[in-house]
């Protein structure tokens, strides 16, 4: 063995190299304060190792990047840990870098003869920040996508070559496949290679000059790198690794929803270590401001840092450098805290009271609703409204303005928090859907075809102006509608006891939560609730109008029938009503009522011979349901599974079923539903069946909207969502 070593040593001087590396003398002996450089090398090595393995799982591409990261995290044992360690070590690197830099400046280690090493160190810092920036995009999730988009837009604002630089980085006009391939090549190839080269020079130069002894300390005997300093370095590295592991386990990095360039993503923020730059940019206005804030000032600061070794030659210069680095670090910390405060103040101070502001704004709104165009606030912007409001007390206006600004900032924070919550929801949903297997069109197509995700958006966009979708507790999409006063046939008296008093123009439509279910129908056929509406003259709002109360049907034929025939029912009548509701609701074929409906059908087909086929069975069921409707004379006006009779009222065949709802929304004025004037202002969303492009809603949008209204969407088995206890089929299309 020894001879073998001697043989190798003879040809390679291995012993000399190892000896040289380990027995580097340290003037003043090993110290804990010397560990920072080593921890940075350590974190870089961790990044290279974890990064190489991540590479083996990663697939750059707009339909595969998110998907491959998702698969690694959820389906490869330990994948989440691998990603967690890479994620948090990157952040550790930024922190260690700041410490290392501050220490080098404060200890004067940047001064002659170590200038070159300081400059190399600054270059290394830039490379690390470049790695952080490029890495953030690679999972191709919403937050990385939008944050990076802002970063490249900033680059595009640079004078002269800005736009070209952006296009080079992005690989085209817009974000896409080539943005990922380019960022990935930078992140895993160009930048690490540069880093290795720079670290080699950095360490070699460091070895040449040695540590910078602290002059103010008590002299201690000199020591060697091995083993005292190595021991300290190893302990420090392992402590850092421990912290990284703990963070990875207890605070797993989130994979957001897949990137969607067409989405209004309102939770875009850079990673926390760039927040100070983000906050800094809020102070600069216009193009010149942007260039100054995002490019000139950072470049000047960096330029100053490069000059530090020359400035620091004198005592005063050194003091200036120390002051500068302290100001920079504290400034960055201050900006970070201020950015976080802007975003999280509504969470940190949930009980902050702005009722003084909202009461003024409410007063203005109420006056606008009351007087419309005759209001003194009509057609004014906010500033003008306030001037009018404070006409008699202009001194209060300034104070109010600053309160209002505070309130708006608080609101913005609330909106940001809501956007973050929505982003979490979408992220989780995307992973739920992806767990079923991702089609070649990518995970985004899953989300875009998901009724649970798209339903509320479509509803808010197209329906919420008139309809609510809220449960009995008022949760959901619920909008109080302005109380519009008016005269004429279609208006209704605000106070039923004063039919000649103030009258309101109906401005709403039924609440569609649970539409077609037994519960919904029970309320609809309740004489007390069918035309109920609450008119609040104080706030000039209409609330609690769950059915026809806030529509032109408030005193229509149906309301009349319900009020006449269904009030004060005897026991038989009540039983018949219950049967009618069960039978009609079964037409909806809601999956949430499948068991109840099946019981009813069992009852209907009870007397059928065992040999009867499906058609016979179906016939029996329809006859049973028709009988239930007939008992309360519904079929006098409504069609129900017959082609020629009835018809002055909407067809109840397949009432509230998926197809019925699609047909209704497509064209409510169709002869099957509310032909001509009997349709109360509901637009036809897809009247042109031949050319869907001409319609407001596309076929798939209609399906998703209806599926969402019916509470039918894919939900994994152990669902905690009570709204969808049914296991809907995977959406297609």
């Amino acid at each position: 063995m020894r001879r073998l070593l001697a043989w190798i040593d003879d040809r390679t001087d291995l012993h000399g190299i190892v000896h040289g590396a380990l027995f580097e003398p340290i003037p003043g002996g090993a110290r804990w304060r010397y560990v920072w450089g080593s921890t940075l090398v350590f974190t870089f090595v961790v990044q290279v190792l974890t990064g190489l393995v991540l590479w083996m799982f990663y697939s750059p591409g707009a339909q595969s990047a998110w998907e491959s990261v998702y698969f690694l995290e959820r389906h490869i044992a330990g994948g989440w840990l691998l990603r967690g360690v890479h994620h948090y070590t990157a952040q550790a690197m930024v922190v260690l870098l700041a410490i290392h830099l501050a220490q080098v400046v404060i200890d004067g280690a940047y001064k002659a003869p170590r200038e070159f090493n300081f400059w190399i160190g600054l270059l290394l810092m830039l490379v690390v920040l470049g790695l952080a920036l490029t890495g953030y995009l690679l999972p191709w999730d919403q937050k990385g996508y939008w944050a990076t988009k802002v970063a490249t837009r900033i680059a595009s604002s640079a004078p002269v070559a800005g736009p070209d630089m952006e296009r080079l980085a992005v690989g085209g006009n817009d974000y896409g496949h080539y943005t990922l391939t380019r960022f990935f090549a930078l992140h895993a190839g160009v930048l690490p290679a540069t880093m290795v080269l720079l670290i080699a020079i950095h360490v070699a130069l460091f070895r040449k000059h040695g540590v910078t002894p602290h002059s103010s300390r008590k002299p201690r005997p000199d020591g060697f790198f091995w083993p005292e300093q190595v021991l300290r370095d190893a302990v420090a590295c392992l402590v850092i690794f421990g912290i990284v592991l703990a963070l990875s386990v207890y605070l797993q990095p989130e994979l957001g929803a897949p990137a969607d360039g067409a989405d209004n993503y309102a939770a875009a923020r850079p990673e926390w270590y760039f927040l100070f730059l983000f906050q800094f940019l809020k102070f600069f206005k216009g193009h010149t401001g942007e260039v100054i804030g995002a490019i000139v000032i950072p470049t000047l600061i960096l330029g100053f840092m490069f000059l530090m070794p020359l400035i620091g030659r004198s005592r005063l210069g050194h003091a200036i450098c120390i002051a500068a680095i302290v100001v920079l670090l504290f400034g960055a910390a201050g900006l970070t805290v201020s950015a976080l405060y802007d975003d999280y103040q509504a969470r940190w101070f949930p009980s902050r009271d702005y009722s003084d502001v909202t009461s003024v704004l409410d007063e203005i709104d109420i006056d606008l609703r009351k007087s419309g165009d005759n209001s003194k606030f009509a057609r004014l912007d906010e500033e003008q409204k306030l001037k009018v409001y404070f006409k008699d007390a202009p001194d209060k206006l300034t104070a109010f303005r600053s309160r209002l600004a505070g309130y708006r900032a608080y609101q913005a924070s609330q909106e940001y928090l809501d956007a973050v919550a929505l982003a979490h929801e979408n992220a989780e949903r995307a992973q739920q859907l992806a767990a079923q297997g991702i089609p070649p069109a990518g995970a985004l197509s899953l989300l875009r075809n998901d009724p649970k995700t798209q339903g509320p958006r479509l509803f808010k966009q197209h329906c919420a102006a008139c309809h609510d979708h809220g449960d009995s507790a008022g949760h959901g999409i619920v909008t109080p509608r302005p109380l519009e006063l008016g005269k004429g046939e279609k208006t209704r008296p605000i106070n039923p006891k004063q039919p000649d008093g103030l009258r309101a123009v109906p401005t709403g439509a039924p609440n569609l939560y649970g539409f077609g279910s037994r519960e919904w129908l029970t309320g609809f056929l309740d004489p007390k609730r069918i035309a109920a509406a609450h008119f609040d003259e104080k706030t000039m709002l209409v609330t609690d109008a769950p059915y026809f109360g806030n529509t032109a049907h408030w005193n229509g034929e149906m309301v009349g029938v319900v009020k006449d025939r269904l009030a004060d029912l005897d026991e038989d009548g009540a039983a018949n009503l219950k049967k009618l509701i069960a039978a009609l609701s079964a037409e909806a074929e809601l999956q949430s009522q499948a068991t109840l409906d099946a019981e009813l059908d069992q009852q209907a087909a009870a007397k059928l011979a065992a040999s009867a086929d499906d058609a016979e069975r179906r016939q029996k069921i329809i006859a049973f349901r028709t009988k239930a409707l007939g008992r309360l004379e519904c079929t006098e006006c409504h069609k129900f599974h017959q082609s020629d009779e009835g018809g002055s009222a909407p067809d109840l065949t397949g009432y509230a079923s998926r197809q019925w709802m699609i047909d209704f929304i497509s064209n409510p004025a169709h002869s099957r539903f509310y032909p001509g004037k009997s349709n109360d202002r509901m637009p036809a969303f897809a009247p042109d069946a031949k050319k869907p492009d001409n319609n407001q809603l596309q076929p798939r949008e209609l399906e998703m909207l209806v599926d969402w209204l019916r509470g039918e969407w894919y939900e994994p088995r152990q669902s905690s969502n009570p709204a969808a206890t049914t296991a809907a089929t995977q959406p297609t299309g």
Partner: protein
Amino acid sequence: MANPVPPSSPASAQTQLQRRNVLAAVAAGGLGLLAAVAGVVPGLNALIRPLLNEKPAGGKKVRVALLDAVPPDGVARSFPVIDERVDQWSRYPREKIGSVFLVRDSKDEPPRCFSATCPHLGCAVEYKPQQGEFRCPCHTSAFAQDGSVISGPSPRPLDTLEVEVRGDQVWVNYQKFRSVVEEKIPE
């Protein structure tokens, strides 16, 4: 270089040798450098293509909404822009590629259209009906009903897009403009 001419004197031989060395050094330096960077050329040549390719300018006319879906109440509403999209080798079928705001002030006027892309750094602005303002969730730029800047870092008003009413349909010339500059430069 067979049979070199014998040097006439040792001194001139010295000069000749020196001259030859200088030539060799220049040639070696130049060619060596060329060899060192030769591999970069085909790479860069491909990489800079996005700069040389011509950009399709002027935007594209897209049907955005039914006129009836834009009530003449002066309130901004967001409408999705649905069109084909191409990303290198991928051609995406018609799907949402962005959104715009439509506002109609009166029944006799065509709607006005604002791009939803913030002129500052490209985030998507939202409309706050309560305040009658557009707001950007990123750097808190705020825009008035007419698109002008109320506060925040935006360098210019919200970008208006050309609107054309064809029958009962609203068409919009959908295009993007360069960020962070005061002028509206099509991208």
